[in-house]
């Protein structure tokens, strides 16, 4: 795979390759097949949306792509190599529907936590966290606890945290699900804008057809496969 001098995949080269992913879950005495052989390629800098009805397997798909769960069958590659927990923090960032900020840490420390988990915590990282918070419009609220922030502000902190380690891929699992329409639109705009600026590939799982339309490629998951 083509990479730049920074170690990042060059624009256009595949950074995520999924082939024949299947996943089923037990339900009583039978198994429910959620994914039935999904193929997906995501290229560096590309934005892809995945839509689907509730229970269609969107979040399951995202968990597999993030390496948080293992597929029953099929293969997955992150920039040409198998997913690996050690690489996760540097390779990808994740934004969740429920934000999942650490309540004991203020916004700045929540953003910095991503770098801290990589063992990188120097002046450069502090500056970057400050810049990211400024970029998401929260410079003034850097030292506010999550409980002191609105839903939209919390999600913006989560976006900044996801981008802290300059990942090649950002996975967003219904990031506007807990936000009102106006705030949700603003968060999606911000997400797309930041990913474009940082040349980070984005996989956006959403219910919202308008948000999906703003990505370069829109996929629809139905009955366990992309239609």
């Amino acid at each position, binding site marked *: 795979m083509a990479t730049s001098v920074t170690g990042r995949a060059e624009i256009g080269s595949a950074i995520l390759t999924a082939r024949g992913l299947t996943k089923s879950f037990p339900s009583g005495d039978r198994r429910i097949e959620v994914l039935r052989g999904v193929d997906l390629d995501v290229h560096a800098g590309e934005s892809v949306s995945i839509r689907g009805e509730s229970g269609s397997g969107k979040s399951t798909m995202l*968990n597999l792509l*993030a390496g*948080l*769960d293992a597929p029953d069958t099929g293969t997955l590659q992150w920039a040409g190599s198998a997913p690996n*927990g*050690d690489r*996760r*923090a*540097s390779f990808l960032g*994740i934004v*969740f529907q*429920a934000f*999942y900020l*650490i*309540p*004991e*840490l*203020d916004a700045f*420390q929540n953003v910095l*936590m*991503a770098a*801290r*988990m*990589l*063992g990188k915590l120097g002046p450069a990282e502090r500056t970057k966290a400050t810049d990211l918070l400024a970029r998401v419009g929260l410079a003034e609220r850097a*030292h506010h*606890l999550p409980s002191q922030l609105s839903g939209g502000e919390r999600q913006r902190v989560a976006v900044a945290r996801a981008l802290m380690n300059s990942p090649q891929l950002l996975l967003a699992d219904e990031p506007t699900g807990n936000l009102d329409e106006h705030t949700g639109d603003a968060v999606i705009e911000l997400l797309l804008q930041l990913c474009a600026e940082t040349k980070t590939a984005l996989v956006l799982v959403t219910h919202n057809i308008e948000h999906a339309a703003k990505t370069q490629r829109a996929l629809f998951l139905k009955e366990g496969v992309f239609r």
Partner: protein
Amino acid sequence: MPWYLYLALKQLFPTGKRFPFFTAISIVGVSLGVAVLVIATSVMGGFGAKIREMTVDTQGDVQVRASGLIANAAATQAQLAKIPGVIATTPFAEGPVALIYEPAGNAGGRKPQFPAMQGIDVDRIGSVVPIERYIHDGALADLDDDSVILGVQLALSLGARVGEKVEVYSPRGFETAKRDEVLLPRELRIVGYFEFGHQALDNSVALVTLRTMQDLYGLGSAVHGINVKVKAGLDPDVATTRINAALPPTANLHARSWIDLNQDFLFVLQFEKNMMFFLLMFIVVVAAFSVTSSLLIAVVRKTREIGLLGALGGKPRHVAACFCFQGFIIGVGGTIVGLALGFSVLYVRDDIVRLFTQLTQSEAALVRFYQFSHLPAESDPSYIFAIIVSTVVITTLAGLLPAWRAARLKPVEALRSE
């Protein structure tokens, strides 16, 4: 600082919270256990040290006795003086007597007392035991062959005061009575009191000169034993071995250290202290269980956060370390606070005891039962070290179960949890 240690600190001391309730309660629980342990072991140690000090102050480091009497005390003392480590010696004679005090105008007299009378060499005893420091209303130098120094409680029991006279009846009177002879009591003038602060001694010992005691018991120039002081820092048992090796076997003399002489009592003291330590450690164990319980609740409450940590690349062992470290911090914090609390209470212990005894009107009972007029305390560094290590280990172990639970959580399942 690794992220898991940082997060552990932040979870215990969250940003913007001046009084983290869970942390404060956990630390207070542990610190109470530590404080009680420090106080109990120190007071027990104080009792032990006080008793040891009094024993050495009255017996000397080593005591040399014969199977019967030591006929030539001066020669034995000269032999002992040549032994390396021996600093000074003093002979003694001892035995029970009857003491009667008849106040003027009270022909019926009062109840007799039967103290153990100690005959001491006034010129030499000071070089072996610091008896002078316990004497008041008089001085050791005032003691002559016609006088006596009484234990303060004994004087109170008799109702006799300094300057007054008491009659002393020797057990020799029983022997002379067989021969139809009457041994007249000896009149001794009270020239002072001694107060060791130990009820048993202050109530049952009287001091006279060695010559007086030899006369009372008809010993001639013989003595019952010789007390020996050894060089500071020299183990009394080592000194005893040296003395026994140096004494001629034909002399039929045998030296015993004060530790050997009181070994049963010292064993009981040590055993009590160890049992106290063991039993009170359960306070820390109970506090540790409450820490476990609180951390387990935290693991359940923070399930999705734990999932997030996994999703951000945190390894299970680091997630476990985060919770284990919280137990460790609570242990360290509780130990520091507990030590401070324990030593503070020890510092004002006499005030606390005084207040308590005043409230319960039990001051006299305290002296009667516990033998001491103030609460002694001596903190043994080895016990303090054991308290610190045990507490930190127990509370760190308290974090293990929650840590194990947290480490077992799969990020994807944790994030999905409601």
